[in-house]
């Protein structure tokens, strides 16, 4: 048969669906806006060390105010790597933060968590992070770990360190982790190095990304900017993520919200690149709208998806890996709203091609984490991955001979071609396609009930691969060291 496109000229294939929120010209325009803001308006920097670095790098520093010449920012964009490869804790290179590769995971530092067994909304304990890490480890579409809630039953200033320990002990997936300050960051890097087999091994095949959040608009606390500097010094990649919401800390227009988010990210980028040219930087952006009725920062709004996809377009334009948001909700219970908001944001974030998509566990506008939601998101991500796979068009898949063989009025069920290809259909595990009677016979369960059963089953039965006793001891020693230090401070 000579119909094949392989002998045809000028044949262009969409290997995957194409989504582009902004044109290249629009991306350039937004970037130029951010450069103008940095050069003219500047940013407020609260760290002496950072001020000194910026001054030496050629910025105009006036008290806390720093204005950034555009050429310097552009230099920093060029000097940052366009790709960062993250390994799992066994040193296998699993996440390629480059191009449009997409990886999903949960989110950090919620005030509350929903107990997956009692349904109670309460403060998180260290045991909750243990549970979270197990669920993360078991779910196939969750690619990296975050802590899923601030641990409150340990020394308050070490909840970051304890959460990290809990994750190391219960999952081997890569971890994106936050810390209160530089001391804790040192603890975290030391623990990670213990797992990796030394700092250099960790630097070559990092399985952690450090996480730092500035306070938009254009304000960078000591903690935020010092973390960016610290990460660069230690040659560990960092996610620098301003939390920008339109109407509140940015103008109400989407384009201006992007300008603020890009400008604030670039401040972190410049700091890191001035410390170590080429240090790994992932542009962040929790970016959404402020609900003008309740004043929450919405995690379910269409604007979260819109802005995140827009920001991702700009990051791609700059060729900087992107940390985006999806799988989250404003709903306070697992209900239809949660399904809608999670699915909507997972789909658009996936189509946008952001490299890391976090917050697949956030409910109640981020105040509360839910492992059930993460389990549900895992299923949604499966569906979305199928969509991201697009439609294959070639002779085998066009199947003209099969169509001719079956002809009008036949069926394809028992055909070899069907047998060869029907497994390309996505196979649901929590989505239910039973007929009404069958579904009734199985107890008329809602998806939330099926999700709950699965989450509980994972927590009760999943056994993550354990690290060696010696590594676990080393980790414990670092936690003990941190405890002693904090006790001294008090």
């Amino acid at each position, binding site marked *: 048969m000579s119909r094949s496109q392989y002998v045809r000229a000028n044949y262009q294939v969409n290997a995957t669906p194409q989504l582009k929120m902004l044109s290249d010209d629009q991306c350039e325009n937004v970037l130029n806006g951010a450069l103008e803001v940095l050069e003219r308006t500047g940013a407020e920097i609260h760290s002496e060390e950072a001020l000194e670095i910026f001054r030496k790098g050629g910025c105009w520093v006036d008290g806390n105010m720093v204005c950034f010449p555009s050429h310097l920012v552009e230099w920093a964009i060029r000097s940052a790597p366009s790709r960062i490869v993250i390994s799992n804790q066994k040193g296998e290179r699993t996440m390629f933060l480059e191009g449009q590769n997409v990886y999903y995971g949960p989110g950090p530092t919620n005030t509350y968590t929903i107990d997956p067994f009692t349904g109670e909304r309460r403060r998180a304990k260290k045991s909750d992070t243990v549970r979270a890490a197990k669920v993360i480890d078991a779910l196939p579409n969750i690619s990296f770990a975050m802590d899923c809630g601030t641990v409150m039953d340990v020394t308050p200033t070490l909840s970051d360190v304890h959460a990290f320990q809990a994750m190391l002990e219960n999952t081997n997936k890569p971890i994106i982790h936050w810390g209160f300050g530089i001391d804790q960051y040192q603890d975290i890097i030391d623990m990670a190095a213990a797992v990796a087999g030394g700092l250099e091994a960790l630097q070559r095949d990092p399985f952690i990304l450090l996480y730092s959040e500035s306070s938009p608009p254009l304000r960078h606390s000591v903690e935020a900017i010092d973390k960016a500097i610290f990460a660069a010094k230690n040659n560990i990649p960092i996610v620098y993520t301003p939390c920008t919401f339109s109407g509140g800390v940015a103008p109400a227009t989407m384009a201006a919200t992007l300008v603020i988010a890009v400008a604030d990210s670039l401040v972190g980028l410049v700091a890191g690149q001035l410390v170590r040219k080429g240090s790994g930087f992932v542009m962040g952006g929790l970016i959404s709208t402020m609900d003008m009725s309740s004043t929450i920062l919405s995690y379910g709004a269409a604007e979260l998806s819109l802005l995140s996809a827009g920001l991702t377009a700009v990051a791609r334009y700059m060729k900087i890996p992107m940390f985006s948001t999806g799988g989250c909700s404003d709903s306070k219970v697992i209900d239809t709203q949660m399904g809608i908001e999670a699915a909507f944001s997972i789909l658009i974030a996936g189509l946008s091609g952001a490299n890391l998509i976090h917050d697949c566990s956030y409910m109640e506008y981020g105040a509360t984490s839910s492992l059930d939601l993460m389990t549900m998101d895992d299923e949604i991500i499966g569906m979305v991955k199928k969509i991201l796979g697009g439609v294959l068009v070639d002779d085998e898949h066009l199947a003209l001979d099969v169509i001719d063989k079956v002809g009008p*009025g*036949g*069926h394809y*069920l*028992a055909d070899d071609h*069907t*047998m060869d290809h*029907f497994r390309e259909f996505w196979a649901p595990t929590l989505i239910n396609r039973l*007929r*009404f*009677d*069958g579904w009734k016979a199985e107890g008329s369960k809602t998806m939330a009930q099926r999700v709950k059963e699965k989450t509980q089953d994972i927590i009760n039965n999943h056994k993550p691969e354990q690290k060696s006793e010696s590594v676990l001891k080393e980790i414990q020693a670092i936690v003990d060291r941190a405890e002693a230090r904090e006790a001294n401070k008090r």
Partner: protein
Amino acid sequence: MPNYYEEISQNVITGQLDRVKQLTQQAIGAGNNPVEIINQGLIPGMSVVGARFKAGQMYVPEVLMSARAMNAGMDLVKPLILTKDIPSAGKVVIGTVKGDLHDIGKNLVGMMLESAGFTVINVGVDAGPEKFLQSIKEHQPGVIGMSALLTTTMLAMKDTIELLKEEGLRDKVKVMIGGAPISQDFADEIGADGFAPDAGSAADLCKKLLA
């Protein structure tokens, strides 16, 4: 002596037509009783398939592959035995009712019934009451199965039942119905013996009706 039954059964389950044919031939050649080849090899394999499908462990195309493999084995064995000795779970006439050209649901039921060991007579689409009547007279089935996809054509089911009554055949045959607009209360309304919401449960229903 190799355990042909076990192997035949396994290959029916995995739907390997050529292998089933080969093994059945070998079993015949080795002098195994043809009825036993069916009862201990082909059919047990297929009943595993049925159970797995029900449990969601196998999918329709796989079931049909298994059925194809089983039938290929049957075709080799059948000529060797008397017709009355060929095991059958029962005889079912199926068809899509008058005015309706929808085929797939009915065909799927047909294939599922065959896989479960029933002998199926398929009267096709657009089948009026007379066609069903004629088929009953000719084949003396235990069950007739009628399918309809349209709300307008589902009324034709009642006509068939009425005709069977007129002809005094209603108590000689069980009537089951199915299709998208059909429900249990409609089945009750027109006096059918059963309603099957899908192809898998149609086989169960037949078994129950003929028990």
